């Protein structure tokens, strides 16, 4: 109960919430390494399932929503179901892929290597597919939203690519619900996923 005494001081603390989260894209001038500006998962009406922004290009929620809306309008008609598609949008490169009623997007700067962004999208798309197994649709995604958030967290950290291999990403996400003492190597990813899914579908929103 080491936290108890702190709680007494709770009211005395001057809480100044720090708003200045350093923006990566702003700081990195030049093209030293690939930077992801955002990752979006939207539904078939362009509404958010889960989104993550890493750049200051869209400072407010309104700006973010406007970006999502026009991006969705621009891409909704294209057939991005077999192969990932690509477009230039507001001086950004956007890669996207759709499955069922889910729309996956990854955005990068206009000088970014398109194929690196494609690898990020592929990693995102495949790891979600692995985690949701056969039912990759909006309902399943919302029911396992915690997995999606964790997945985003494992792909990119503040604009820097952490991992693009879908098996590794899904493995890291799924490992959460297992016994921490069991080393990862002793379980196959399939087992890990099964455990994770069982655990979560049983517990969430019962």
């Amino acid at each position, binding site marked *: 109960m080491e936290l108890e005494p702190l709680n007494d001081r709770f009211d005395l603390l001057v809480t100044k919430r720090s708003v200045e989260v350093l923006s990566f894209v702003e700081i990195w001038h030049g093209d030293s390494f690939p930077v992801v500006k955002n990752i979006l998962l939207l539904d078939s009406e362009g509404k958010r399932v889960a989104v993550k922004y890493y750049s200051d290009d869209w400072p407010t929620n309104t700006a973010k929503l406007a970006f999502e809306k026009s991006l969705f309008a621009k891409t909704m008609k294209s057939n991005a179901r077999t192969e990932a598609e690509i477009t230039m949008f507001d001086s950004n490169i956007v890669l996207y892929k759709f499955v069922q009623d889910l729309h996956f997007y990854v955005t990068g700067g206009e000088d970014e290597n398109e194929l690196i962004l494609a690898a990020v999208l592929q990693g995102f798309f495949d790891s979600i597919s692995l985690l949701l197994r056969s039912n990759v649709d909006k309902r399943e995604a919302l029911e396992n939203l915690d997995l999606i958030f964790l997945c985003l967290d494992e792909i990119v950290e503040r604009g820097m690519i952490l991992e693009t291999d879908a098996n590794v990403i899904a493995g890291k996400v799924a490992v959460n*619900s297992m016994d921490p003492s069991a080393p990862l190597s002793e379980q196959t990813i399939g087992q890990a996923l099964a455990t994770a899914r069982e655990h979560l579908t049983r517990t969430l929103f019962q």
Partner: protein
Amino acid sequence: MAQPLVKKDDDHDDEADYSPFLGIEKGAVLQEVRVFNDPQLDPRRCSQVITKLLYLLNQGDSFSKNEATEVFFSVTKLFQSKDLGLRRMVYLIIKELSPSADEVIIVTSSLMKDMNSKTDMYRANAIRVLCRITDGTLLTQIERYLKQAIVDKNPVVASAALVSGIHLLQTNPEIVKRWSNEVQEAVQSRAALVQFHALALLQQIRQNDRLAVSKLVTSLTKGTARSPLAQCLLIRYASQVIRESANTQTGDRPFYDFLESCLRHKAEMVVFEAARAITELSGVTNRELTPAITALQLFLSSSKPVLRFAAVRALNKGVGCIDLLVFQNAQESDLVMGLLELVYFDPVAMTHPMAVTNCNIDMESLISDQNRSIATLAITTLLKTGNESSVDRLMKQITNFMSDIADEFKIVVVEAIRSLCLKFPLKYRSLMNFLSNILREEGGFDYKKAIVDSIVILIRDIPEAKESGLLQLCEFIEDCEFTYLSTQILHFLGNEGPKTTDPSKYIRYIYNRVHLENATVRAAAVSTLAKFGAMVDALKPQIFVLLRRCVLDSDDEVRDRTTLYLNTLGGDGEVVETDKETKTLLFGALDIPLVNLETSLKNYEPSEEPFDIDSVSKEVKSQPLAEKKAPGKKPTGLGAPLAGPPSTVDAYERLLSSIPEFLDFGKLFKSSAPVELTEAETEYAVNVVKHIFDRHVVFQYNCTNTIPEQLLENVSVIVDLSEADDFAEVLSKPVRSLPYDTPGQTFVAFEKPEGITAVGKFSNTLRFIVKEVDPTTGEAEEDGVEDEYQLEDLEVVAADYMMKVGVSNFRNAWESMGDDFEHVDEYGLGPRENLAEAVSAVINLLGMQPCEGTEVIATNSRSHTCLLSGVFLGNVRVLVRLQFGIDGSRDVAMKLAVRSEDEAVSDTIHEIVSSG
């Protein structure tokens, strides 16, 4: 009825829009946060609540300061749970809440414990969270652990520490730089992503140390990088080294072999990164370029849209510089030759189109690509690089494609076609056909304007295209919904139509406007008719008949114009030849900026003396940047009206002429913008305006006393001329009294030799008698003290003798000026940041008005032509054509061609440049 192909499983089939978060409310969720305080934690339920919180934040809900603090404190309790899944969610929510420094302290110990945990996942995540929320002071405490983590044998932990290091380098560089050894070790890691992250961090740490980066690249290019991402980084750093060493080294290009070997890498992203890097190298030879182009060419036929897109874009970018060169100079072949001399040191520009042309066959198949972005890129690349024989085929393909794309793309295509047409004037027929076809189709204003502009430019530059182009425009205004375009076309018709072989065929179209359109267009149509009448004597009788029908128009502007034209052109029955003067009066170009005219008219007081239009200043006042729309590199076909702030020249002129001493200086040539001689918020605010006369220069010091307790008397400025030899002070006119906050002007006049562009530096001292003022009564004391106040120096530069006066058609002006007093020379401007900087420096040095938007330079272009116009002291018109080129080592060369009405002035311009 169609059945859904996949039957959804049982539960919520009937609810189409089922969501587990349906009806979720922030208030309720914040209540639920209480479960975090339960003595017996339920990890599942807690995870669930965190997910809901994250959901709310992700949907754009925000927590107030208190709410966030409360959630944060509750969350800290969850560190007691040993549940791994819950801990992951705790990490996530802490990052989202971005706690303040005081709050961070509370979780620090828990996170530090996790950082040293045996569980890899705890270690990795705790590092990421802590580094995200920490500040510098805490960092020194955990530095030891971070250094260990960098070389941790678990790749996830090492990556977490390295990525955090990249971020921390921005805020605490001195700490992160101490980790070099560990990072160096991590670069050798066998884990793919660790090497990638270590490489990124190491390069960041050493980015200001060129030699170190070069060494790093050298050591790594020998071995193999483990992951494609790391390989891409290496390519970037290698090309950085190549770029930076371009100045110092000649001969062998370092690392080219490495780049070339990457073209054979098995990962596409590496191949692409390398190919792109090679096409962007400066001074690359054809032999070096070919393998890269071949690699990109293979991508063009890939089944993956991303690959096709990337390849087309890289090829498109690679030819950008050439495009600009051809575009700007297609009209003037002698100029192209001159430019070729300038760009000879830039072989990329010359070799590129050849290499890219090889790809064109592949690219043509992309025109019909499903992905419209790819198709448009392919089109514009083809248009840039295509040759004369392929024009017809291309036009056919583009026609099929135009209806499917958005207006913004169409404009890009129209612009590309315009430049193609200027490149291959012989092909004007099919291009003009294309333009007129798309002109008839649906489209917004900007698109239509782009087409009309293009046709106008073609008419102007390709004489053969004139008749058909004018007819196309006539057809267009028959059914044009845009008043602006109609009036512009009518104006253009009035200028060009009478010069054609059969002017009468345009009359019908013009007269139709008088019946069918709104007042603005009707007025324009009347003017156009009158122009035909004035210029084509044979048509006069018919035109008068038509004009007389407009005398009773419902709009007074239309009636006024009609009456004016009928009277001045002799519409009372006789067919007379309209004399030149009348023509100039009615249709001559108004060389006066409209704003200046407007101000002068406002200042004109009704009196015996009529308003004299010659008294209006012709100087274009520089426009505030905010209002300025960058017109891009394209020449505007239908010039945009000039806009600017009201001119103050007139006010200056009246002020100066009210001072008898200045009367015999003659007519004021130019007044500068005010130059501040004091810092903001000092005791005395002084700025100065330079008035230039033929043989005199007058400084007008505007002084303001900002101290309420002081009254200044006998205020004058003492000017030291030791650095301005050509000037001699003739007169100083002090201000008698300068009370608080009431501006006053003191003048100092100098004589300078006539016809010499005298320049110099003047140091100024404000001298005055200061008297104390009683703040209560406002009375000043009897006795004052003499005092001085040092002002900043002022310079008179060559640009002060030049007035910015634009011309509407530079080419015409240039030709009509003739080369009697032409003076051409070449200059090296030394290394510059970029071309834009060099161009604006020369424009500022000369103080002339850039014409036709040539002051705007496309980014990364390697050559540029800038057209300037102005009037030099003594009312001598001057035109300047500047051609710039920049080479790989950023050395700028410039060719300066001056034409003016006076040989001495042409020489003076060169003197200004060579001494500036």
